[in-house]
């Protein structure tokens, strides 16, 4: 019995139970918190798998940014959560069935596939290199540079589309349109009004 094994089982259990909570809990806020907890557990498990950089990224980016975004949206939309989960029971058995079948199939398969050879044992020795982050960075900027660029484009797309979708010119807000300001012409700025009274 080694510490790693204990950690593995504990956090695996926590991970699975919290993810079940994500799915079953009524309140989206609670659900989100459970998800955060799942992420946290996985980060720890990832550490066991020699993925230090990714486990930190998971915490930073996921828990720190994405989940916050989730929570933010949940709060902002002010969702009515008091409704009961009608029909849940009805579908629950099907859910369990599907869950059991897929999980069973996959587990059975994995168990057969990867349990026999000696290579299948995860060791605590770092096989890849001492500095996981550095190695990753190196690969990222050499072999997978193109992919990296594309990822950047994806993020850009994410930004643009999120903005385009949600940005609304509210009637109550007062705002300036920079392009209008820049392109303003003389005739628009100055209006010459004939003073009829004076002409008389």
């Amino acid at each position, binding site marked *: 019995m080694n510490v790693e094994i204990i950690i593995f089982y504990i956090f695996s259990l926590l991970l699975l139970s919290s993810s079940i909570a994500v799915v079953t809990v009524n309140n989206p806020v609670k659900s989100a918190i459970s998800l955060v907890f799942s992420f946290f557990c996985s980060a720890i498990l990832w550490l066991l798998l020699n993925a230090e950089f990714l486990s930190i990224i998971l915490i930073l980016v996921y828990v720190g940014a994405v989940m916050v975004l989730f929570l933010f949206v949940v709060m902002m939309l002010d969702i009515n959560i008091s409704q009961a989960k009608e029909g849940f029971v009805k579908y629950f058995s099907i*859910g369990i069935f*599907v869950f059991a079948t897929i999980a069973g199939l*996959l587990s059975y398969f994995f168990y057969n596939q*990867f*349990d026999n050879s000696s290579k*299948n044992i*995860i060791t605590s020795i770092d096989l890849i290199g001492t500095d996981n982050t550095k190695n990753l960075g190196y*690969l990222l900027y050499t072999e997978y540079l193109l992919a990296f660029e594309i990822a950047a484009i994806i993020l850009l797309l*994410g930004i643009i589309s999120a903005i385009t979708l949600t940005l609304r010119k509210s009637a109550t807000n007062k705002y300036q349109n920079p392009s209008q300001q820049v392109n303003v012409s003389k005739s628009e700025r100055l209006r010459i009004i004939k003073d009829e009274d004076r002409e008389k």
Partner: protein
Amino acid sequence: MIPMSHYLIVSSILFSISLAGIFLNRKNIIIMLMSLELMFLSINFNFIIFGNYLNDLTGQIFVFFILTVVAAESAIGLAIIVVLYRNRQSINVQDIARLKG
């Protein structure tokens, strides 16, 4: 020593939970989104496990990209949900069934 299959089994159970979560959820789209996050988490698990097993960093690279993309995806997804909410004042899954047949 934890056998690799244990990790994989954990990840596949996670995957199954997320799948079940997607269609068991009849109320809230956001929970669906969260189930999806779980699904990606399980996939990331897979990659990391396999990377470890193969003694190869490509798996982790992949996970890195998945994280990036899923973040962007979540942003867009949430934006869409916001748009939907503005139109319908609800993000109840059972309410968004105008398109059918």
